[in-house]
């Protein structure tokens, strides 16, 4: 095999990586969701409802992150619609906690070019619950009813509930309840269900649509004095979307008032406790027969495409920028040290922290994820280019000059080929790092193999995690194999025995 120039490498590699990411459907509606069960279920319901009624392609970006990320995604147009709660909107988004009425919140959102639907029918707020049997025995229906047994009842309340201003203190004041302090236990929220099941406590705090309400046979006491803030679930959409897709927006609005608290609790339980797929839960709710969600193969294919896009683009960047930077570091030693130190420092920033820093600059979605990946894949390429070029025997350079080769000829004919084993090892390293790190991209809504990992983690569902983790590992293995092959094509035969790898430190 005759030697081919190493700068051909990215040219050979990239089109194959980028190809799958091309080609977007013209009419596309993007549904987002937060990264907890209820968000996933509502997102899937929205997606399937639109799919049933519309010819537009629905793209699901479910489990993108917390409120901030979803809102940012909506504002920037990365998604068209998602579900949120009136209380969250007024407090976390509008920063006006005193805005209570639907009309007021809607008016405030209007100013931001956002449209809010009527409530979907359930209120996901703090609530107090007792065992159904305990409620029967003591005839408990409302929080006020607790006054009758205030000194004898034992409670298990979460730390958050005990410490929040709108939690325990305010509640007892509003309802004039006088619990026995000895019988009020602070405990980890997830343990309180176990405690009430075991009869260790009789009263706990929870979210009103918690999946475990059904399983633990709990009765949620009515907030008859309206103490807890209202967290009505609603759709939030970009105005532009509601105008360009009035039919689809109407489809979503038909769901207003249609999801009761009981229905939501049941669906959360199907997901959390029975481990049913969101697609199946949503299709059962909508009354459609077969889940219209993508098959798992199609899902993996789409995530593979997203993942390849992230890895491929960041790799292209690291090659196009990293190799020149590495060369510059050799040419200008002082600046070179700075380049190496900066790329090493970037490498030590934890991925999540880096993503957080990048969100204000790039928003959410693919952009910040790409930026983070580019920065991470830079060091191996810069460092290996630097090392590879620095370790080229200087006598070869002098000889090349003596033969009358020009600077570019020396660079491309002598230096880069001689350094190619080390440079290629750096690119290989960057690729593997990038395939692994790209799973974190799901946290900012960039999709990829990280999406099932994130949603699996939120559900504590190992099989779902594996549908992301296994393909990611396979992709890394395949990339490794491809680079071995590329090495055979690109590294001059005369150098192959001595190919060396400069490893950056593990992160």
């Amino acid at each position, binding site marked *: 095999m*005759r*030697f081919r120039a190493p700068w051909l490498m990215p040219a050979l590699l990239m089109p194959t990586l980028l190809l799958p990411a091309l080609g977007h459907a013209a009419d596309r509606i993007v549904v987002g969701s937060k990264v907890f069960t209820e968000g996933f279920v509502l997102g899937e319901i929205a997606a399937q409802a639109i799919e049933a009624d519309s010819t537009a392609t629905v793209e699901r970006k479910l489990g993108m992150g917390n409120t901030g990320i979803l809102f940012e995604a909506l504002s920037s147009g990365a998604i068209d619609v998602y579900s949120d709660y009136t209380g969250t909107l007024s407090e976390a988004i509008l920063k006006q906690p005193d805005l209570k009425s639907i009309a007021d919140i809607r008016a405030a959102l209007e100013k931001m070019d956002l449209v809010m639907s009527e409530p979907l029918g359930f209120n996901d707020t703090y609530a107090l619950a007792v065992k159904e049997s305990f409620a029967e025995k003591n005839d408990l229906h409302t929080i006020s009813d607790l006054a009758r047994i205030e000194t004898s009842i034992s409670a298990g309340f979460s730390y958050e509930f005990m410490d929040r201003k709108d939690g325990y203190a305010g509640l007892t004041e509003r309802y004039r309840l006088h619990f026995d302090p000895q019988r009020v236990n602070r405990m980890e929220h997830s343990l309180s269900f176990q405690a009430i099941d075991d009869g260790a406590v009789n009263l706990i705090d929870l979210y009103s649509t918690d999946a475990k309400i059904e399983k633990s046979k709990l009765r949620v006491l009515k907030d008859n004095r309206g103490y807890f803030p209202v967290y009505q679930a609603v759709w939030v959409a970009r105005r532009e979307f509601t105008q360009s897709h009035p039919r689809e927006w109407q489809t979503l609005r038909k769901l207003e008032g249609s999801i009761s608290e009981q229905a939501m609790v049941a669906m959360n339980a199907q997901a959390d406790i029975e481990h049913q797929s969101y697609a199946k839960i949503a299709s059962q709710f909508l009354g459609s027969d077969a889940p219209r969600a993508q098959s798992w193969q199609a899902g993996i294919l789409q995530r593979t495409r997203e993942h390849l896009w992230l890895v491929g683009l960041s790799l292209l960047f690291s090659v196009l920028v990293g190799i020149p930077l590495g060369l510059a570091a050799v040419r200008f030693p002082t600046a070179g040290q700075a380049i190496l130190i900066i790329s090493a420092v970037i490498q030590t920033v934890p991925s999540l922290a880096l993503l957080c820093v990048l969100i204000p600059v790039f928003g959410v979605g693919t952009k910040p994820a790409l930026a983070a990946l580019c920065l991470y894949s830079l060091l191996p390429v810069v460092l290996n280019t630097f090392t590879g070029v620095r370790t080229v025997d200087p*006598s*070869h350079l*002098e*000889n*090349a*000059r*003596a*033969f*009358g*080769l*020009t600077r570019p*000829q020396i660079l491309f*004919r*002598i230096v880069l*080929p*001689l350094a*190619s084993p080390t440079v290629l090892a750096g690119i290989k390293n960057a690729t593997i790092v990038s395939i692994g790190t790209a799973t974190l991209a799901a946290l900012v809504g960039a999709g990829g193999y990280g999406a099932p990992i994130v949603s699996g983690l939120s559900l504590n569902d190992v099989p779902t995690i594996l549908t992301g983790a296994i393909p990611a590992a396979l992709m890394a293995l395949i990339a490794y194999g491809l680079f071995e092959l590329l090495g055979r094509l690109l590294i*001059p*035969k*005369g*150098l192959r*025995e001595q190919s060396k790898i400069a490893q950056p430190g593990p992160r």
Partner: protein
Amino acid sequence: MLELQNIYKTFQDRQVLTDVNLKVPTGATHALIGASGSGKTTLLRVTLGLIPFDKGYVKINDQALLSFSPSAWADRIGYVPQEGGLFPHLSASDNVSLVPRLRGWKKPKIAERIEQLRELVELTTRALGRFPQELSGGQKQRVAIMRAAMMDPQLMLLDEPMAALDPLIRRSLQTELKSIFQRLGKTVLIVTHDLGEAAFLAEQITLLHLGRVIQSGTYRQLLDHPADPLVTAFINAQRTLADAVQVA
């Protein structure tokens, strides 16, 4: 014809070449000899145009170095670096054809020239397809000479051509180098620290010491009419132990 006239060169305030004069007539073989630190490598680099010098002229066939572009000058000199200096990532034939390819030579012309030189240095076609690390020391030298001769230079410049070879191969290659030089018919300058090699290959020898020419002449002249006690000292230092035993 190679002419070095009144070459001066300082390096970091140190005078490394002082008034160096050297003349190699067309077709002659000349040896530049000296211990390490004598300035012979510096003079070699000056001749190749790799480093600037302070004063003097470097001329090949009456044309001065400074009137040429680096590549045009390079094409007038066929340079054989120490140990051949083959690029490890290129096969022997790619090493040989590197410069002509960059100069835009057509493939048939390159192939023809390679074949001509291959026969001249008596290298097998198979060896030409190999990579440097697969070649013996002698084969590397032959490939390096082919590479140096490709552009039909007016001067062949060899830096310690035998230094890395083992003594037996050295002996046979010296004989062969001599006949290669004759067949090439070029002006040749060999830089070496080995007096025996210099005497065997070259008609004229120039002894360099601390950046100055101590004496130029034939081996006999250096032996019989040393211009300086240093010449005798240098010659004696290079006599083999066997010689020394015989003299005693």
